């Protein structure tokens, strides 16, 4: 069964990828989507029927490689954590496949799109089922590849190509750390298999390792390096810049990869490696601090964005920060729980916004929307549910998971946890604000789209230069010139409905298992909890005001948004004009892109140009290939000139040769 879950998407990818042109778009869609649906159903079956002794089972597929001590198997490690991820990945992926049939119906290269989607799913499944670090790295890079391909799916657009490259390169930074971390783990434990590593972590608590000139605690260093990979993949502060740009990809891709699954790979990785991280409080503190800063930073930027997908992208970034805070304080299950619920409501929001974009003929700027509720009521309803869940409205999914995180942050004694608590609460308010801002700007108020058509006119002066051509891909937008927004087809609405059910109920149904009374029975040891880690108990004993604070912030955020965008629509502009510095700071995302451009991109480009022109061109080519070939030609010319054609020259050469040989063997040789 597990083999089917993992390999069905691969088969789908191979069929659609290799024979897509042959069999056509529709069969490709049907094949990949139905395979994914089967995988998803099997995942749920596995999730509910799983009953392995010891809570863990290992399925060996093959031996991958063996070199000296390094033995890497190709095997599945199935435990509760894997099952949660299987359910999340396959469910969202299957729904996105279905949704894409409607969303992409005008695109000429649909087989390629569906092949990529299935490839991504396969890579993600190998990641979550991995039994060792190397297989995990394979999946890790596989999802990176699929992400690159899908962000750049509309490769005719320069912005899409740039975004794809940016995602790939920024991820390389994290992956470099991850790879170093794997090496270090191998050096420390002599194995990359989880089964061999986890039981021995305790022995190495005091081990040290020399790295870049400093003596480090080996475990802390390994955790930090591994966490670096997680930061890249999960778009955490400092390595987050690729995620907003990744919105250049088609919206279903954003929903699947950049909201529900791939970006949570970092969270999954830290949770999977909890037996290692749990031994390094220093590393966990770093996780808390980075997570909290990300949650806060991304929320602030989200406040002022005008692109509907970017708002959700920053929201994703922020929510990932929440998850890392939970991991950092030791409440791994809370982090995974939020991952689980977040997958539903964030996918819902993305797919909903995709439906809006579809309705608006690929307009993404919220300033050109408004009053859409009358035209696309179902989408509006679904977006409302998603927003409620995201902001943590009581008894929706987000309410249980997000509040749990905030409470654990308060309850924890970890260094940095107090700051994290404050930042998270503030971020919760901002989340509520920008979510409702999105809703009001899109669905309520006066329509701002009727007059000027849709999207072909000039952009707002504030639009960031890099994204200047984000509407340039309207090649497939040639269906009539009906300016009225229209509701999306059934294939897009049904996934919305299913996700909405998840967004409403996932928290309520599963909270006992994930973070409640049935904790031990549910997880069965899949997450390692140190003996002195009682965070889940302490969480329930926090003061009442702590429990109330997220709710208060949510209501406050809603009210401010309502005031700004429903009652006094001119206020936001005035506020922006009165605080131009702050506004621009936020609108330009804290100037991170510019900073990185100056710090890394330009020096790298200069160095590259220098090495290319001077280093490679002048030195290596000059002394290497070009120089050698020039010397060879010189030698050749000289040798050829020896061949004069005169027979007495030839005879003379022979005599000279024999004289030299005679002399050599008389006086110089071994004689």
């Amino acid at each position, binding site marked *: 069964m597990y083999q089917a879950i993992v390999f069905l998407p691969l088969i789908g990818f191979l069929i659609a990828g290799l024979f897509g042109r042959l069999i056509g778009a529709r069969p490709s869609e049907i094949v990949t989507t139905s395979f994914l649906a089967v995988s998803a159903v099997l995942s749920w079956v596995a999730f509910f029927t799983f009953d392995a002794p010891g809570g863990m089972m290992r399925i060996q597929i093959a031996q991958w490689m063996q070199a000296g001590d390094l033995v890497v198997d190709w095997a599945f490690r199935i435990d509760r954590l894997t099952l949660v991820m299987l359910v999340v990945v396959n469910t969202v992926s299957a729904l996105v496949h279905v949704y894409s049939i409607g969303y992409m119906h005008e695109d000429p290269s649909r087989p390629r799109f569906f092949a990529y989607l299935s490839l991504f799913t396969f890579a993600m499944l190998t990641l979550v089922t991995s039994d060792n670090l190397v297989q995990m790295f394979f999946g890790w890079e596989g999802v990176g590849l699929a992400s690159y391909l899908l962000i750049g799916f509309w490769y005719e657009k320069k912005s899409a190509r740039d975004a794809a490259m940016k995602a790939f390169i920024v991820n390389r930074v994290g992956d470099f750390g991850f790879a170093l971390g794997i090496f270090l783990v191998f050096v420390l434990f002599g194995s990359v298999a989880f089964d061999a590593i986890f039981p021995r972590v305790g022995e190495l608590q005091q081990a040290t390792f020399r790295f870049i000139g400093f003596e480090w605690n080996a475990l802390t260093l390994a955790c930090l390096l591994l966490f670096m990979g997680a930061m890249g993949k999960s778009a955490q502060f400092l390595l987050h810049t690729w995620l907003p740009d990744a919105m250049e990809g088609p919206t279903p891709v954003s929903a699947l990869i950049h909201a529900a699954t791939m970006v949570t790979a970092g969270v999954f990785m830290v949770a999977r490696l909890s037996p290692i991280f749990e031994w390094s409080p220093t590393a966990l503190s770093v996780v808390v601090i980075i997570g909290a800063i990300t949650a806060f930073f991304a929320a602030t930027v989200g406040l002022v964005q005008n692109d509907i997908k970017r708002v959700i992208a920053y929201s994703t970034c922020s929510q990932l920060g929440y998850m890392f805070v939970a991991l950092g304080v030791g409440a791994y299950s809370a982090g995974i729980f939020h991952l689980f619920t977040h997958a539903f409501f964030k996918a819902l929001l993305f797919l909903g916004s995709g439906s809006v974009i579809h309705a608006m003929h690929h307009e993404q700027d919220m300033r050109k929307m408004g009053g859409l509720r009358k035209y696309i009521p179902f989408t509006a309803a679904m977006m409302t549910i998603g927003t409620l869940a995201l902001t943590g409205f009581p008894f929706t999914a987000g309410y249980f998971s997000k509040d749990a995180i905030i409470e654990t942050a308060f309850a924890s004694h970890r260094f940095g946890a107090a700051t994290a608590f404050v930042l998270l609460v503030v971020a919760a308010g901002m989340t509520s604000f920008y979510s409702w801002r999105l809703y009001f700007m899109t669905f309520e108020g006066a329509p701002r789209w009727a007059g000027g058509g849709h999207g072909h006119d000039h952009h707002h002066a504030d639009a960031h230069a890099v994204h200047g051509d984000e509407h340039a891909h309207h090649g497939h937008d040639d269906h009539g010139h009906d300016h009225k927004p229209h509701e999306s087809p059934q294939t897009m609405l049904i996934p919305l409905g299913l996700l909405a059910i998840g967004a409403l109920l996932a928290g309520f149904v599963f909270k006992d298992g994930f973070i409640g009374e049935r904790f031990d029975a549910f997880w069965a040891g899949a997450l390692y909890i140190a003996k002195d880690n009682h965070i889940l108990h302490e969480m329930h004993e926090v003061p009442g005001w702590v429990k109330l604070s997220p709710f208060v912030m949510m209501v406050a955020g809603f009210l401010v948004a309502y005031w700004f965008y429903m009652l006094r629509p001119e206020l936001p502009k005035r506020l922006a004009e009165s605080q131009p510095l702050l506004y621009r700071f936020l609108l330009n995302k804290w100037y991170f892109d510019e900073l990185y451009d100056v710090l890394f991109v330009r020096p790298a480009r200069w160095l590259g140009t220098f090495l290319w022109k001077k280093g490679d061109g002048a030195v290596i080519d000059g002394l290497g290939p070009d120089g050698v*070939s020039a010397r*060879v*030609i010189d*030698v*050749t*010319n000289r*040798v*050829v000139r020896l*061949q004069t*054609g005169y*027979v007495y*020259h*030839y*005879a003379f*050469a*022979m*005599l*000279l*040769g*024999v004289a030299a*040989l*005679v002399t*050599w*063997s*008389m006086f110089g*040789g*071994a*004689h």
Partner: protein
Amino acid sequence: MLPFPVLAPALPEIILVVGALCLVLLGAIQGDGARRAIQTLSVGLLIVVLGLVHLSGGKQGVGFEGAFIADGFAQLMKVFTLIASIATLLMSFQWLERERVERYEYSLLVLLATLGMMMMISANDLIALYIGLELQSLALYVVAAIHRDNSKATEAGLKYFVLGALSSGMLLYGASLIYGFAGTTSFSGIAAVVKGGAPLGVVIGLVFLLAGMAFKISAVPFHMWTPDVYEGAPTPVAAFFSAGPKMAAMAMFVRVVITAFPAIAPQWQQIVIFISIASMALGAFAAIGQTNIKRLLAYSSIANMGYALVGLAAGTPEGVQGVITYMAIYLVTTLGSFGCVLLMRRDGQAVETIGDLAGLSRTRPWLAFSLAAMMFSLAGIPPLAGFWAKFYVFGAAINAKLFALAIIGVVTSVVGAYYYLRIVKLMYFDEPKPAFDRGDASVNGVVIVCTIFVALLSIAPAALFNAAAAAARSLF
């Protein structure tokens, strides 16, 4: 009375002599009218002799008071030489006819030259060696100039003759020095004398002897005739020069140093190493500057002799096995290459500049494929046959701790790869020139067989390697 001479080991040679003399008579009586009959009969005769040599099974046998030896080594090398002669004869006839060189003596001279080669291979005595060598050389001098109305061909023949006479003089001088100091001309006798350390005269005599033999395999610095003669002589003759005589001379070279001078191996190894390095380097560098494909192949054969000598420099059975393997593969490759050159004929006119090959892949894809296979093989690129050839000689050199020699060999083969690959590039990437004429069936046949051998040797290489190993063992 002395006993009747032992003839049995030389049976194939005797058949060849008798047959050749009958054909000489036939030609003398019938004149040019019998040309075609003589051609057919010559090929038939060589095939019969090849069969006899093969059937002899490499039995050890000594004839004519020890002057003539038949053993596994001689048998294998004779098989290769005869194959080369048959192939070149087959490729020659129609070509020569078109060039209006319709001489029946051509086949006869090839027959007698082949006889000379077989005598060289079986020579077990300095006199036998010299007479075999002269028989072969004299026939080759004439064949080189057989296109006697062509000034280039006569120049080639004359140059070859003058320089060949000089080299024969050196060889003879060396042989007489050796005889003077060792008191015997037989190889086994010389080996017995030098066992306890050779007198200086023998060493110097050996140097002269090696110089004379190096001329025959066109090793540097006795190679100067090669490019001029290959270019000037008719192409089938150049093909003949590059195949059989090289094989026979190399066999003779190996037999002399291994069986007559095993005791002073360090001395001759130094000389072999020197001429090996010089040949590899000069062959690689000089070929780059060539525009005529026959000159290029001449330098290629110089370099190839250098590589073959790498195996001999090792002086071990493994090294000799490498030499045999190398020569066998070289033989096929050079026959195939020259076969392709023979097919370079445009509007009834033979063309032989490298530029004429441009874009051949589009006009004659299979010919381009064959020539490309030959070039890749000569460059030593796996999985073609040439790779194994180099692999074995370099392997033997490394096992004999001749690391510098092996490294130089690898470096020069990299340089050499340049001009081989340049031909491939010309054929596959340049703008096509007008197509060549349809080729002769016999040449096409030889090229196809060579291509198949070169391309597919890697599938079943063991037969060749084992035969070479057995032949090498028979010398030690």
